[in-house]
């Protein structure tokens, strides 16, 4: 399927009338992005798979209620994903704590495996720090770096203004830098 024959408004209209084939096209377009978001928020491939399926199940059940009020469909999906991940963290907190420090390494798209190995230790340390940040800061970093979204797009998903996102991003960087200094971790320049 090419982007040329992809008209999201039309597909959304069909999907909201119960057209499963249309919903299938939306699924194909967004599944990888949602999987990435959930994967980085949970740090677990299996949980990411399970939660991604639940995101799309919920979206399919509620797509009739989705009304386009200037909010992109992707923002709606990310909000569903965010809520499910928040529930997952809450349930996990109630049950026995299982440390999620080992993020199973999935291949980065287009990276050479050797390069992955060289950076893995620094990356692991940084990932651990990111996972200790408050959820909204984690969201911000994932959307900015994994999804390459602009502050305005992130604002639509997080229900914040562009300025507020910019400010939150600055505070997040400050906090990460302070943590790095506290732990005497020195990220080497490339």
């Amino acid at each position: 399927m090419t982007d040329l024959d992809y008209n999201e408004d039309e597909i959304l209209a069909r999907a909201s009338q119960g057209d499963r084939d249309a919903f299938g096209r939306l699924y194909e377009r967004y599944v990888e992005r949602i999987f990435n978001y959930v994967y980085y928020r949970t740090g677990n491939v299996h949980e990411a798979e399970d939660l991604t399926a639940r995101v799309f199940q919920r979206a399919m059940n509620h797509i009739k209620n989705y009304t386009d009020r200037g909010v992109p469909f992707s923002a709606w999906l990310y909000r569903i994903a965010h809520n499910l991940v928040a529930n997952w963290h809450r349930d996990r907190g109630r049950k026995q704590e299982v440390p999620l420090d080992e993020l199973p390494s999935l291949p980065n798209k287009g990276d050479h495996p050797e390069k992955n190995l060289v950076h893995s230790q620094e990356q692991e340390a940084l990932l651990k720090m990111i996972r200790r940040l408050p959820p909204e800061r984690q969201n911000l970093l994932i959307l900015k770096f994994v999804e390459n979204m602009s502050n305005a797009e992130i604002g639509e998903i997080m229900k914040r203004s562009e300025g507020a996102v910019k400010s939150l991003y600055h505070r997040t960087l400050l906090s990460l830098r302070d943590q790095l200094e506290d732990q005497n971790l020195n990220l080497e320049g490339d």
Partner: protein
Amino acid sequence: MTTRRSDSHAEDFNRLETHLAGTLKRVAPPNGIVQRLRERITLPTRATITLRLHDWKTLFFVFGGVMSGMLLLVTIARALYYFVGRRHTL
């Protein structure tokens, strides 16, 4: 002095952003995960739907099978009704 400190801050941030960009990269989901998820949310693929609609022979046999089965059931029911009903009248 202040300029030097802000330069150092900007440098720190740049380095941190570079590392964040290197760490938070889009990952490729494991093989088969997208298909498994698709099955879990019960979406037949476009190819499957097209295949099903084009496979008229299978459709013909399925339709024929269902009709024959129903005819058989009706015949059995009629036969039972006939024999049981006859016994009662004798």
